[in-house]
């Protein structure tokens, strides 16, 4: 029998980016907030200090910061006629756990989506007609527009101190920035990171082909910065340990650096770590949440009553929490009916390795997670798809996040995979190779979805999340088209040989690709095709909000943290300015 605790105004399920940000704003507004985090507490000092934090075997290979998949795995299959099996070793994507969530081990790449991304279906059909869409594709508009989100992107970037160069301020193109970006209200809070040599080589190659290179926006900072919460960040030292690591240097924006020190001092807030939420409790009508039930580290169960429940977990776990709690109708791929789990999308990846002359020293170990140089000429709908037979696109960039010894050993095609010849090739190429990445859109398909696994259960006896996913053919055509462009750039950079990449089928969970898992609890204008409304409020249970990338109807071109931050501020504003004044549905379907 769960012990019933004292009522609070708000409970957040998860204390990562969305959980700490919503809690900060609502506690400031005077609400009592409890943050339930399944993982352990951790802070820059003492937990993220060297030399322990640079343990590549522990963090990169054994994934020490990720969801414990002994306790809580995800099952996977490529299509619904297969039997899903648990992923026992994370590889393709890396859901974080512990205080701060995945916003601790991220790379700091901080993008905005484009204007067309938010009105994707309308935009594509208007520009190309309905025939360009394969029949299986289920893309949708978001229900919120870029111009509505712009102030929230701005606010989020200033919270993080993001280092970058504006390319478009209120429609005026800015030299040095990305001329193809969506218009922004003002410059980035801090100037861009220094361009590494690999970026300079890419810039030269891309410019020679007529493209528009720009410095990647980075939340590993180029200079010291104090954010509007009064929290100071330091300057990145290019140690090359961002992705899969915590920053020891107070230089990467994370809950620990830009949110938590203020939040934890707020008397309205209480953090409870090692608290695994099992379900959201509903009243007899099923239309109102009464709070949540969670288990502490010893397995004791508690009921935390709350007026407002915010699901602020990793996107995949947002969807699972809805399914476990019976909120919304689960998606049925046979009939196309139901919504929870529908439109699960991912990110298309790929890229090339450019092998250079031995006289060119790249020094890949001098890097941060977001100091690339990139182009948007093939992002989203920035190029004419009329004759191409696919939709979507990818950014292309020389993005090297640290030449760490276990993970980074580039060798040309045809090199043996082990032995003396392999070692010789690694020694020859380690310092003379540049990685070009292509990252981009993932198009929603009626075949891809999330559900509860019929067989496998977690350590608390609850069904695991089941993922059914393969890249739609549209995305393969798109990524392979762009792979050719990547090779051309690699040659223009002076590559002696250039490997060719691009997304292929079948999707494989044993190779790292991207941790940008999206959708499954998508936002929209119609409860028949969305789980949450434009404010990420559940259609079926209005005092539950499911916040984060689970709300993306499909993934845009870019890494999603910036858009999650903007959406979170957008939802917070709606809660503060509308919901609290008159609790109930903010949109009437």
């Amino acid at each position, binding site marked *: 029998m769960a012990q019933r605790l004292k009522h609070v105004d708000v409970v957040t399920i998860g204390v990562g980016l969305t959980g700490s940000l919503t809690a900060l704003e609502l506690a400031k507004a005077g609400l009592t907030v409890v943050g339930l985090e399944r993982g352990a507490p951790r802070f*820059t*000092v003492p937990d993220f*200090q*060297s030399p322990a934090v640079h343990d590549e075997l522990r963090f990169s290979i054994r994934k020490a910061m990720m969801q414990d998949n002994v306790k809580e795995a995800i099952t996977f299959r490529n299509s619904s006629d297969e039997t899903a099996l648990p992923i026992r070793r994370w590889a393709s994507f890396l859901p974080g756990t512990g205080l701060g969530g995945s916003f601790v081990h991220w790379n700091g790449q901080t993008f905005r989506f484009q204007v067309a991304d938010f009105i994707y279906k309308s935009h594509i059909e208007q520009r190309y007609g309905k025939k360009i869409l394969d029949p299986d594709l289920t893309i949708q508009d978001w229900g919120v527009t870029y111009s509505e989100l712009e102030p929230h992107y701005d606010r989020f970037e200033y919270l993080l101190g993001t280092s970058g160069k504006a390319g478009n301020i209120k429609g005026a193109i800015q030299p040095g920035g990305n001329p193809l970006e969506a218009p922004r209200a003002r410059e980035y809070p801090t100037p861009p990171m220094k361009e590494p040599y690999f970026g300079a080589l890419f810039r030269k190659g891309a410019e020679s082909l007529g493209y528009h290179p720009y410095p990647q926006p980075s939340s590993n900072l180029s200079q010291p910065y104090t954010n509007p919460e009064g929290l100071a960040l*330091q*300057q990145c030292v290019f140690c090359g340990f961002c992705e899969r690591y915590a920053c020891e*240097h*107070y230089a990467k924006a994370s809950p620990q650096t830009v949110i938590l020190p203020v939040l934890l001092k707020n008397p309205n807030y209480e953090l409870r770590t090692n608290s695994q939420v099992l379900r959201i409790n509903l009243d007899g009508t099923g239309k109102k949440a009464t709070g949540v039930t969670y288990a502490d580290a010893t397995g004791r169960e508690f009921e935390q009553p709350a007026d407002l429940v915010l699901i602020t977990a990793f996107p995949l776990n947002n969807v699972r929490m809805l399914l476990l709690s019976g909120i919304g109708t689960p998606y049925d791929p046979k009939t196309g009916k139901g919504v929870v789990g529908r439109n699960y999308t991912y990110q298309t990846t790929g890229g090339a390795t450019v092998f250079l002359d031995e006289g060119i020293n790249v020094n890949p170990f001098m890097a941060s997670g977001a100091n690339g140089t990139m182009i948007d000429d093939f992002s989203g709908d920035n190029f004419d798809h009329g004759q191409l037979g696919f939709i979507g696109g990818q950014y292309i960039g020389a993005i090297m996040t640290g030449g760490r010894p276990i993970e980074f050993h580039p060798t040309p095609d045809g090199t043996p995979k082990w032995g003396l010849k392999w070692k010789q090739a690694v020694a020859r190429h380690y310092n003379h190779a540049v990685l070009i990445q292509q990252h981009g859109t993932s198009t929603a398909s009626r075949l891809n979805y999330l559900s509860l696994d019929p067989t496998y259960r977690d350590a608390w006896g609850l069904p695991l999340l089941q993922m059914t996913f393969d890249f739609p053919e549209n995305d393969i055509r798109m990524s392979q088209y762009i792979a050719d462009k990547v090779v051309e750039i690699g040659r223009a950079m002076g590559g002696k040989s250039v490997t060719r990449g691009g997304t292929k089928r079948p999707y494989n969970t044993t190779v790292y690709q991207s941790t940008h898992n999206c959708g499954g609890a998508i936002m929209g204008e119609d409860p028949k095709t969305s789980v949450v409304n434009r404010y990420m409020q559940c259609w079926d249970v209005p005092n539950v909000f499911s916040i984060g990338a689970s709300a993306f109807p499909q993934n845009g071109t870019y890494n999603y943290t910036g858009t999650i931050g903007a959406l979170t501020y957008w939802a917070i504003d709606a809660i503060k300015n509308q919901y609290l004044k008159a609790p109930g549905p903010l949109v009437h379907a």
Partner: protein
Amino acid sequence: MSRGRTIRRVLATTAVASIGAVWVAHAVAESLIHHPDVGSGAVIAAQGVAPSVPACAQCHAYDGASDGSGAFPRIAGQSASYLAKELRDFASGVRANAVMTPIAKALSPDEIADVTAYYASVNAPYLPLASPDPMLTKRGEQLAKIGDGTKDLQSCNNCHGPGGAGEPPAIPYLAGQYAHYIAFQLTMWQRGIRNNSPDAMADIAKRLDAQDIAAVAAYFQQVDASVLAATQPMK
């Protein structure tokens, strides 16, 4: 002389000339790259460079251990790249110092390369020094290895290497460095007088109070760098 012999001689001369031209061009290219000469550096350390550079050894000792007072830093085994950067900064005035600036200005780039290569190569003994207050070194060790979360202060060793052994070429060692020198430099960073490194050092120094500075300085002075050196990979 027959016509045939003349032609052969002309051809032969031309061949020799062109080989010579290639050889000379190669030699010129070689001479443009200065390979640091430890021997010449040792001479500069011992004798200085007439007329305006006194012997480095006068203050830093011939073996780079200086005199232990902390008025002059230990430079034995310090990264040549770091020492050369500091000399260039003294010369340009970016790092202001009444003693070092005229000396550094008088050294040519080749002389800087030689003398820094020399001191980088020296393995000097550690001078016997008074034992510091154990409470002070304990606090210093905490700051060096873990930092202080209440001050948003990361550990020194994140950048200066395990045990403060340095991360050459860019980042100097602190292990075995004299306490007075460390404390004085931190104070200069704190006050913005020294600012010839990434913004990191000024920011960090400002988070330290006088007690913290004394503590890290006392701690690093007594770290047994000879033990650390044995565990470090070759530079």
